[in-house]
């Protein structure tokens, strides 16, 4: 469960978001749409604790941003899967290791890591690229690695920031299908996209944001 209460946040000398109220129930799939610079990524950053609300507070699966200490942050993040808009893959290890890394940090056993990573690589259609370095992948392939990394440790919510921006029709449908499948297993999904049409078509809840405010 993710819940925003009157949350405001602004970057130093720059826009941000204002007075956001939002409630995403467990198991829900919502889209966050809006034009470039609207504040979609900022909302996701707030959930991901990359930034903290300057006013208001956020409830995250039992945690409240006003009570969270620095020590809690890693543990909360592990329960959230994030697909970054700029991917943020580690440039110095291959695709397999990039995905495995999300499991290593939470202390999963080696044999289990192997099995799980190969599984997820198959799901995003990149089994044949598992030993490549991220720089040796096309833009769309990198995006799929980023998605795989977010999915791999079965978080309670997945935040996806423009996860299909670099993907062709076919791949986009596949990724969306994968997200739907994961959602059906009970994981909430919050997906930021500038593509209102696509979001609308799925029939899920669509939250529209513009200039840092929720408009519908």
């Amino acid at each position, binding site marked *: 469960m993710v819940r925003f209460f009157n949350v405001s946040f602004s970057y130093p000398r720059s826009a941000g978001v204002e007075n956001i109220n939002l409630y995403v129930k467990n198991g829900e799939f919502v889209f966050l749409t809006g034009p470039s610079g609207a504040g979609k990524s900022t909302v996701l950053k707030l959930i991901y604790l990359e930034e903290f609300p300057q006013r208001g507070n956020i409830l995250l699966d039992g945690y409240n941003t006003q009570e969270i200490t620095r020590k809690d*942050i*890693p543990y909360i993040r592990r329960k959230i899967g994030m697909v970054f808009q700029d991917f943020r893959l580690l440039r110095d290890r291959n695709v397999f290791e990039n995905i495995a890394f999300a499991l290593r940090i939470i202390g999963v056993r080696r044999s289990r890591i192997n099995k799980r990573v190969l599984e997820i690589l198959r799901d995003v259609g990149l089994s044949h690229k598992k030993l490549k370095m991220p720089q040796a992948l096309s833009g769309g392939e990198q995006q799929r690695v980023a998605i795989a990394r977010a999915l791999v440790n079965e978080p309670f919510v997945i935040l996806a920031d423009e996860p299909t921006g670099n993907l062709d029709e076919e791949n986009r449908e596949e990724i969306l299908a994968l997200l739907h499948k994961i959602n059906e297993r009970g994981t909430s999904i919050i997906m930021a996209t500038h593509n209102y049409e696509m979001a609308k078509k799925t029939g899920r809840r669509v939250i529209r944001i513009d200039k840092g405010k929720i408009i519908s």
Partner: protein
Amino acid sequence: MTWWYAVREGFANLRRARGSVWVSIITIALSLWLVGIFLIGAWNGWQVLQKLKDKLEMEVFLLDTVKVQDAYHIRKSLLKIPGVDSVKFVSKYDALQKFQKEFGENIIDILGENPLQSSFRIRLKKSFHTRVRVQKIMGQIKKLSGVEDVTYRYDLLKIIEKYLKIFFGIGISLGAIIAFISLLLISNTVRMAIVSRSEEIKVMRLLGATPQFIRRPFLVQGFYLGVFGGILSLFLLLVVIWAARHELSLQILNAREIFGFVMGWGIILGVLGSWRAIGKYLKEEI
């Protein structure tokens, strides 16, 4: 289990950085080399000065009336005095021979008799070469019957002590400077190795890695850098020692302890440097 991960990961870090790892190891090795050269130099200089001190003898001149029998007793008494290490008898005749050899003149030809006295030459134990202790021993000796005079080359002792003081002063200052230089160089090197990975550290934190988890591989990496830098510096030190012995024909002594110390210093600085460097990124907001 998690430490095992850190050990493998620390090693992988080295492989990933490649070129810059060599730069780091060489920098560390050179810093440690400097420390080592200093330590060996200082230690050898110290030994030389100590040896000079040991060579200072105390001379006990006997009255002409003392018989060989008495001399034997005096010798026994001398050996009982605390601080006396060895006692050597130099007869009137020995003294004359020595004099003639040194000055090339026959005094008996001039004076018609041997004006020199029999004496004991006393070597003191190492720690007794200080003015106070020497004074005390001389006092004790003077009280013995049959002893006419006791001499000791105070002037030389003073010179040696002065040099020891200067040596100590320079040694400690230079040592502090070199330790400081190596400290800064090594921790800077490790820091630079980590700066280039700040992007990665940020990603790790975003993925929910705990600070300890992120830090550990870097500590291990620092440890490796210290070890490899240390080994390389030992090599370089051996080369220097070899060159000093063969090219300058100096009698250089090398001590295992110095080697151990150099290695230890490298490892400590490598690990602490990593700790300090990584701390900066872990404290940042996010």
